[in-house]
């Protein structure tokens, strides 16, 4: 069993299942919906054409990534197919890494495609109203990277909890509940997952994340903190996946 054949099988699974297709469709609809609305209503200002969909992209992207990331491995546990997966590729670290890499690749393509689609739709509708729409690649890249980070956490949690639903709920809870709670604690609040990742994505975007607020960490501290969070999630997932009985 080569890594290539396992990767092709993983891509086949993604293509053949409903959850990835539905989440992709939701993502496309989400970025197209603002443009559809602006075809019939005149916005208050020219920035609304791009702001409306890029905000949607920034919000829906991480949610779609969490669903997809949790589904990717969690569905194997739910269906009892981890046994089949690991009797086909017994090198567990390789199996997990291949699955994660294929998932990250597919998610990246989806995020890029929806970014282009959303911008394209805004550009067309804007031009219909004689408004020029600027391409804000850095902001889109930052939103995409944040979504990928959220997806990675969900993927890791699915390996740790051996459940797709726990992974998805856990990831949302981490971002929406645990992070805000931790941020209430002085000093410690600066080192939450969202704060650390947002500090880096703000740097990429060249602007401040509207949800996370202004960065409180230096870039170096943010890199170290983000690395520590990923080491905990991905390292924990890899350790448990490779050592647990199936």
């Amino acid at each position, binding site marked *: *069993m*080569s890594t*290539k*054949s*396992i990767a*092709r*099988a993983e891509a*086949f*699974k993604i293509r*053949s*299942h*409903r959850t990835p297709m539905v989440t992709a469709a939701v993502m496309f609809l989400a970025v197209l919906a603002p443009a559809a609305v602006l075809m019939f209503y005149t916005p208050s200002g020219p920035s609304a054409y791009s702001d409306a969909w890029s905000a949607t992209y920034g919000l829906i992207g991480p949610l779609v990534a969490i669903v997809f990331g949790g589904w990717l491995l969690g569905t194997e546990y739910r*269906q*009892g*197919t*981890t*046994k*089949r*997966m*690991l*009797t*086909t*590729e*017994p*090198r567990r670290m390789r199996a997990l890494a291949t699955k994660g890499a294929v998932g990250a690749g597919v998610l990246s393509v989806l995020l890029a495609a929806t970014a282009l689609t959303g911008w394209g739709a805004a550009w067309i509708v804007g031009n219909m109203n004689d408004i020029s729409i600027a391409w804000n690649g850095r902001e889109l890249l930052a939103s995409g990277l944040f979504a990928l980070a959220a997806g990675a956490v969900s993927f890791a949690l699915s390996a740790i909890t051996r459940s797709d639903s726990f992974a998805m709920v856990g990831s949302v809870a981490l971002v929406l509940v645990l992070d805000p709670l931790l941020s209430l604690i002085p000093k410690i609040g600066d080192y939450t997952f969202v704060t650390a990742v947002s500090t880096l994505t703000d740097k990429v975007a060249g602007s401040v994340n509207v949800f996370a607020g202004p960065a409180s960490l230096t870039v170096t501290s943010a890199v170290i903190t983000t690395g520590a969070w990923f080491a905990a999630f991905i390292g924990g997932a890899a350790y448990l996946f490779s*050592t647990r*009985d*199936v």
Partner: protein
Amino acid sequence: MKMLLGLVKPTSGRASLLGTDVGAADFTHALRRTGALIEAPALYERLSARKNLELQALALGIAVDKKRIDELLELVDLSGRAKDKAGGYSLGMKQRLGIAVGLIGNPEIVVLDEPANGLDPAGIVEIRELLRRLPAMGTTVLVSSHQLAEVQQACDGLVVLAEGRLIAQGTTEEILRSHQTNAFIVRVDPVETSLIGHRLSNLDVNVIDEATGLVSVSLPDGWDGRTLNQALVAEDIFAFELAPEKVSLEEAFLTMTHPTATPALNGAAHVH
């Protein structure tokens, strides 16, 4: 079984599959020559039978054409439902598809853990017939099962384990023969059941069912069915039926694991 496939790590000792130690560097190659169905069939329920097979071929990195998939679907009798989602199949169909998934790579050995678990009688017969066809295709089938009647009918060789220890190994015939007693089941007129024990006092006679005149007679060395029949006739007892008592695998297993148990004679009266 899971340990053999590398799904469970041994706490001590070692296991090997097709001559390769589990977890060794080339264990992947041993698994490549192995098909498996452990406990419940591991199927992608939203995919059809055909897609499940295509996916497994893809994961194994083997080129499988439509003809090979058609052959496998035919073998497991799922040709008519090949395009239906596996989630809608009966348990028996899922088990058969699970076996087909295990066979896609033309394995040398197929490891099946309780393949007939939870199946109705028709499903059990289907699995048994499927298992019997595999050796003719050059595939060894290793089955783990508690359904000993099924094992007796389907398997050529047995390994009997009790509480994690090997207690017997050999062909099914050898193991059954080693537990075979020189006993006969005799059916006589119900009124004569008690007479046999009294008139043939040198024999060990157990009344199995007085109402139907069924008795079990253990013969001494040198006796056979003909000798027994002659002895009965000499005592004016004429048997309707007389046949060697067959030991089932279940009885042999219980004798091996619980030597004091005699399940065939449970509830039987003992007459001398």
